[in-house]
C-alpha cells in the first residue's frame, strides 16, 4: 500500500500537482477518493518499471532530463530541445551564436521561458537567447504546448502560447553523505575550454544548498564554404570568441513536500563577438555584445491540511547589455556604443483550493514592473507595469479531465520623455479536456483551445520613435487535438510511447519589425496574419534486448503549413512564412551496455525560404545533420568518473539555418567529470 501510494503520489504530482494534498497527507475526509477510478487503475503498474517519458499529459509536453543531454550532443538548452516535435530553432551558428526557439510557427516572442517556475523576462526584446543557458546545473527541460499542467502556479505561466520550463538541479542528500561535489571540464573544437564545479550541501534535516559555477572560453572560429562570391576557397568565420562566467546558488528549505521554500541567486557575465551576416568581398564591422545579469528570486509553496494551497514567487533582476560596433564605422567616434539597463521587480501569488476532491479552483495574481534605461539618442526610458490575473479550474469526472482558465492582462506604460503608449487590457481564455477510453489508461485523447495576447516589447513600441508607435497587441489562437498511447511490458520492449497532435493556429496583428532605410522611419507595424496547420508526432521507446544491455529509439516528426494570409494583394499571399520547414524529422538512437553508451542523433529539415516571397532566390535547401556521442561512467580509485565525446555535424555538411549565417562543419567536444 505504501508503495502504491508513493507511486500514486509521484504520478499524480507530475500530472497535476493539485492532487497532492489528498494522498500525501492522507486526510480522512478525503480517503474515499483514493478509490476513484483514476487512482485505482494505477495500482496495476509496477513501481520498479523504468521511468517512462511522460508524453501522456493533458496538453502536449516533451521533456529532456540531465542524463539525456549527452544523447543529443547538447551544449545549450536549445541543443537539448532541437529534437522536440513542433520546435524550430533559429541557430546563428558557432559556439556563441544566438539561439532562439519558435514553437508551432508562432515565433520566438510567443515562447515563454520559466526558470524554476518564474518567467525569464526580456521587456526590451521579448526573446530569450537560449544559448545563454549552460546545461551544467539543469535537471530538466520541458516544453508545454499551451501551458504547464498544474493550475496552482504563477499567472504569467498561463500567459504565453507555449512554455519552456527549465528546472535546476536540487540537492538530494542524506545525513550519511551530506555533500556532493561535481567537477569537470568540457573542451574541444572552437578552442573551447569550459571548466565547471558544482557543490551540493545538506545543512540539516530541512536546509540544503547548491552552488554552481563555470567559466567558458572559446575563440569560436570555424571554416565555411561561401558559394555566393564565386570563389572556391573556404572562408573563416571570425569575431566569434566567447568569454562567459556564470555563478548560481540556491538555498532550499523543505519541511515536507507540502511546505517548501527556496532562494536563488544567479550571476551571468559574458563578453562575446557577434559575427554578423556574411559580407561578400569585404570584412564586416566588429560587433560585440557584453551582458551582465543578476537575478535573485525566491519561492514558497505550502499546502495546508484542508487542501488550501499557497504559492508565492518573488524576483528582482537587473540585466545590462552593452553593444559595440567598431571598424569601418564612419561617425565622429568611429564606433557605436549602446548601453541598455533593464530592471525588473516581480511578485506572484497563487492560491488554490479543492471545493470537491475532484474539483479544484485556483486564482493567481502577478505584478511586474520593468524599466529600461539606455544611452540611445532620444530614448523614451519606459517603465511598464504588467498585471496578470488568472482564475483557473480543474475538474475530473471519471475518465474525463477538464481544465479551464481566464486570464486578464493589463499593461500600463510610463515614459520619462515623450508620450507613453496607452494602457491595454485583454481577457484570454484556455479550455483543455482529456479522456481515457481504456481502463488501463494506456490511451488518451486530448484537446485544447488557447488564446494569448502579446503586447509590443519596448523595442517594438519605442525604439527610435518619438511618439509610441500605434501598435495593437498580437493575438494568437491555438486549437489542438491529439492522441497519446503508452505501453509498458516486462519483455524486450520496456516501453513505447506514441503521441500525435494535429493543430490549427492563427496569429492576428502579428508585430513585424521592418529594417527600413533610415532608422528614424517608423519600422514596426501590425501587419501579419498567419494561418498555421500542423502535426506533431512523438515516438519514444526503450528496449532491453539482453541482460545489462539497453537500447532507446525515438523519432519526432513535425509537419507545418504556416502561410501568410495578411492581404490577397501581397506577392507572398498564401505562401509559407520565412524559415519554416514544412517537414522536420528528428531521430535518436542509443545503445547502452552497463555504464557505457553510444548515441546517434539525426535531424532532417526540408527546404525553407528566407523571405516572405517563396521565390527561388530566397530558397534555402533542406538539410540533414548528424550527431554522434559516447559516454562512459566508471570508477577511478573509487571516484565516479564520467567521460564523454560528442561529434557534431558528423558528415561535415555545409548548411545554413539562418540566411547569411553559415553553420560549422564537423566539430568535437570532450567532457571529463568526477563526482566526490
Amino acid at each position: 500500500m505504501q508503495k502504491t501510494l508513493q507511486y500514486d503520489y509521484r504520478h499524480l504530482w507530475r500530472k497535476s500537482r493539485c492532487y497532492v494534498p489528498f494522498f500525501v497527507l492522507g486526510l480522512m475526509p478525503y480517503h474515499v477518493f483514493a478509490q476513484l477510478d483514476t487512482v485505482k487503475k494505477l495500482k496495476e503498474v509496477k513501481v520498479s518499471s523504468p521511468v517512462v517519458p511522460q508524453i501522456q499529459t493533458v496538453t502536449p509536453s516533451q521533456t529532456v532530463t540531465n542524463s539525456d543531454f549527452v544523447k543529443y550532443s547538447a551544449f545549450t538548452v536549445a541543443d537539448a530541445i532541437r529534437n522536440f516535435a513542433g520546435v524550430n530553432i533559429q541557430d546563428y551558428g558557432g559556439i556563441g551564436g544566438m539561439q532562439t526557439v519558435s514553437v508551432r510557427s508562432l515565433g520566438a516572442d510567443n515562447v515563454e521561458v520559466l526558470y524554476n517556475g518564474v518567467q525569464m523576462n526580456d521587456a526590451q526584446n521579448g526573446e530569450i537567447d537560449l544559448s545563454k543557458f549552460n546545461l551544467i546545473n539543469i535537471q530538466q527541460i520541458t516544453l508545454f504546448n499551451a501551458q504547464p499542467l498544474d493550475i496552482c502556479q504563477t499567472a504569467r505561466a498561463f500567459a504565453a502560447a507555449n512554455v519552456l520550463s527549465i528546472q535546476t538541479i536540487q540537492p538530494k542528500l542524506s545525513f550519511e553523505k551530506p555533500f556532493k561535489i561535481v567537477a569537470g571540464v568540457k573542451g574541444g573544437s572552437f578552442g573551447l575550454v569550459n571548466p565547471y564545479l558544482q557543490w551540493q550541501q545538506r545543512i540539516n534535516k530541512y536546509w540544503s544548498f547548491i552552488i554552481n559555477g563555470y567559466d567558458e572560453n572559446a575563440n569560436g572560429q570555424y571554416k565555411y564554404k561561401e558559394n555566393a562570391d564565386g570563389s572556391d576557397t573556404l572562408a573563416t568565420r571570425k569575431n566569434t570568441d566567447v568569454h562567459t562566467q556564470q555563478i548560481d546558488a540556491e538555498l532550499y528549505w523543505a519541511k515536507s513536500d507540502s511546505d517548501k521554500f527556496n532562494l536563488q541567486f544567479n550571476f551571468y557575465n559574458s563578453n562575446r563577438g557577434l559575427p554578423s551576416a556574411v559580407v561578400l568581398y569585404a570584412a564586416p564591422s566588429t560587433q560585440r555584445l557584453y551582458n551582465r545579469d543578476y537575478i535573485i528570486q525566491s519561492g514558497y509553496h505550502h499546502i495546508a491540511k484542508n487542501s488550501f494551497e499557497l504559492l508565492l514567487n518573488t524576483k528582482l533582476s537587473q540585466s545590462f547589455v552593452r553593444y559595440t560596433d567598431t571598424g569601418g564605422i564612419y561617425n565622429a567616434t568611429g564606433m557605436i556604443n549602446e548601453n541598455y539597463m533593464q530592471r525588473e521587480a516581480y511578485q506572484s501569488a497563487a492560491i488554490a483550493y479543492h471545493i470537491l476532491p475532484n474539483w479544484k479552483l485556483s486564482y493567481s495574481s502577478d505584478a511586474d514592473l520593468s524599466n529600461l534605461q539606455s544611452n540611445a539618442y532620444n530614448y523614451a526610458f519606459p517603465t511598464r507595469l504588467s498585471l496578470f490575473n488568472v482564475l483557473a479550474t480543474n475538474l475530473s469526472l471519471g475518465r474525463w479531465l477538464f481544465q479551464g482558465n481566464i486570464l486578464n492582462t493589463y499593461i500600463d506604460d510610463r515614459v520619462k520623455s515623450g508620450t507613453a503608449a496607452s494602457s491595454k487590457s485583454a481577457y484570454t481564455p484556455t479550455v483543455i479536456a482529456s479522456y481515457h477510453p481504456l481502463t488501463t489508461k494506456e490511451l488518451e485523447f486530448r484537446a485544447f483551445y488557447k488564446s494569448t495576447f502579446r503586447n509590443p516589447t519596448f523595442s517594438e513600441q519605442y525604439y527610435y520613435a518619438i511618439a509610441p508607435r500605434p501598435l495593437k497587441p498580437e493575438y494568437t489562437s491555438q486549437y489542438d487535438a491529439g492522441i497519446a498511447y503508452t505501453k509498458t511490458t516486462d519483455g524486450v520492449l520496456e516501453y513505447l510511447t506514441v503521441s500525435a497532435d494535429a493543430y490549427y493556429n492563427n496569429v492576428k496583428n502579428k508585430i513585424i519589425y521592418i529594417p527600413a532605410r533610415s532608422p528614424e522611419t517608423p519600422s514596426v507595424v501590425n501587419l501579419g496574419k498567419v494561418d498555421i496547420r500542423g502535426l506533431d508526432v512523438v515516438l519514444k521507446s526503450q528496449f532491453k534486448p539482453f541482460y545489462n544491455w539497453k537500447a532507446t529509439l525515438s523519432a519526432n516528426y513535425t509537419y507545418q503549413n504556416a502561410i501568410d494570409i495578411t492581404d490577397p494583394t501581397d506577392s507572398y499571399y498564401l505562401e509559407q512564412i520565412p524559415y519554416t520547414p514544412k517537414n522536420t524529422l528528428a531521430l535518436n538512437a542509443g545503445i547502452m551496455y552497463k555504464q557505457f553508451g553510444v548515441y546517434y542523433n539525426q535531424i532532417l529539415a526540408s527546404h525553407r525560404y528566407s523571405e516572405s516571397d517563396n521565390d527561388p532566390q530566397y530558397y534555402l535547401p533542406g538539410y540533414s545533420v548528424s550527431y554522434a556521442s559516447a559516454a562512459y561512467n566508471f570508477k577511478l580509485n573509487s571516484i565516479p568518473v564520467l567521460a564523454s565525446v560528442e561529434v557534431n555535424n558528423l558528415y561535415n555538411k555545409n548548411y545554413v539555418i539562418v540566411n547569411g549565417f553559415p553553420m560549422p562543419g564537423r566539430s568535437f567536444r570532450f567532457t571529463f567529470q568526477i563526482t566526490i
Partner: protein
Amino acid sequence: MKSIQLSYLLGSIALLTAITSCHKDKIVNNQTTPTAQRAGIYILDQGYSSQLSALTYYDYTTKTLTPDIFSSVNGRSLGNTANDVEIYGSKMYITVDKSGTVEVLNAKTAKSIKQVKFLNGDKDSTSKEPRSIAFYNGNAYISLYNGTVAVMDTITYTVSKYIPVGNDPEQLAVANGKLYVANSGGLNYPAVDSTVSVINLSTSTVTKTITVGPDPYAVSVDSYGNVYVAAYGVYGSSNASLTIINSGTDAVTSRNNSYTGGPFAINGNNAFYIDGDGTIKIFNVKTFTATTTNFISDGTTFVAPFAIATDPLSGEVFVTDAKNYSSNGLIYAFDKTGKKEYSLTTGINPGSIILVNK
C-alpha cells in the same frame, strides 16, 4: 521502417523543390510602348542585412524578367547593400556599400568587366562604403562613407585621388564643370552635417562648402544648371528640406524647409518626386513651382514608394514600391499622362532604376 520512409520522403521533397525552383526567367506580357532605341530597364535591389543585393532586368523586346541578372550572368552575387547604378558609355557601374566594391559591367549584357575594391586595407578588411557615382570627362567620381570622393579612370579603373569632403557623403552630381556632393553626416545622427561640397573638376579640389538643410542625401541637376539638394532633417527637431543652388554662382537660390518630398527625377522642365503622402508630384524647374495634384491619374497607390525615374524619350515615369522593405518589391511604369502601363516584380528594396539602350 517508418522513419526511413519519412527521410526518403523528405529527401524527395527537397530534391523535387530544388529541381522545380531553378533560377528561371519569367515571360511577362505587358502592354509596353518603349521607344525604338531602348533595350530594357534595370532595377537595383538593395536587399537588407543578410539578404544580398540583386539586379533585376526587364527586356523590352523579349518581355522577359530576370530577377537577378547579375548572378545569372556572372555566377556570383553583387554583394551586400548595392546602393547606386549608373550607365556611362557602354558600361554600367554599381556601387556596393558593405562589400566595398564598384562593379563595372557591360551595360547591355550585365557581364562583369571589372570589380574595383574600396577597402580600408588588403583583402578581408572593412569597406570604405561606396555610395553613389557620377561621371565627367572619362572619370568616375564615387562618394565613400569614409568622407572622400574617389576619382577613378573609366578605362584603367585606377583611383588617382581621394578628395576629402564632409561626413558620410551620399549622392553627387555634375553641373557647370563642378561636382556637388551631399555631406549627410547621417551616421552621426542626430549631430548630422548640413553641407554640400563643391569640387572643381579640373583641379579635383573642394572650392566651396555650401550650407543646406540637415542630413542632405539627394543631388540632382536640371538643364538650367540648378542643383537640387534634398535633406532628411533630424526627426523631431528639424524638417526635411529642399535647397536650390545656382551652379553658376554657387549661391543658394532658395531653401524650402517644409519640403515633404524625396529625390528629383528630372525630364525637361518637370522634376518628378515622391511626396510624403505617397503621391507623385511635379516641380517645375523653370518656374520653381510645384503641382499640388497627384501625377498618377488612374488611382494607383503604393505601400512604400521607394525610387523614381523617368524616361526622357518616352515620357514614362517609373516608381518602385518597397512594400514592407523585406519582401519583393514592385516597379510600376506610368505613361506621360500618369496612367499605369504595367508593373513588374523586383527584388527586395528596389532603390535605383536605369534604362539601357540597344
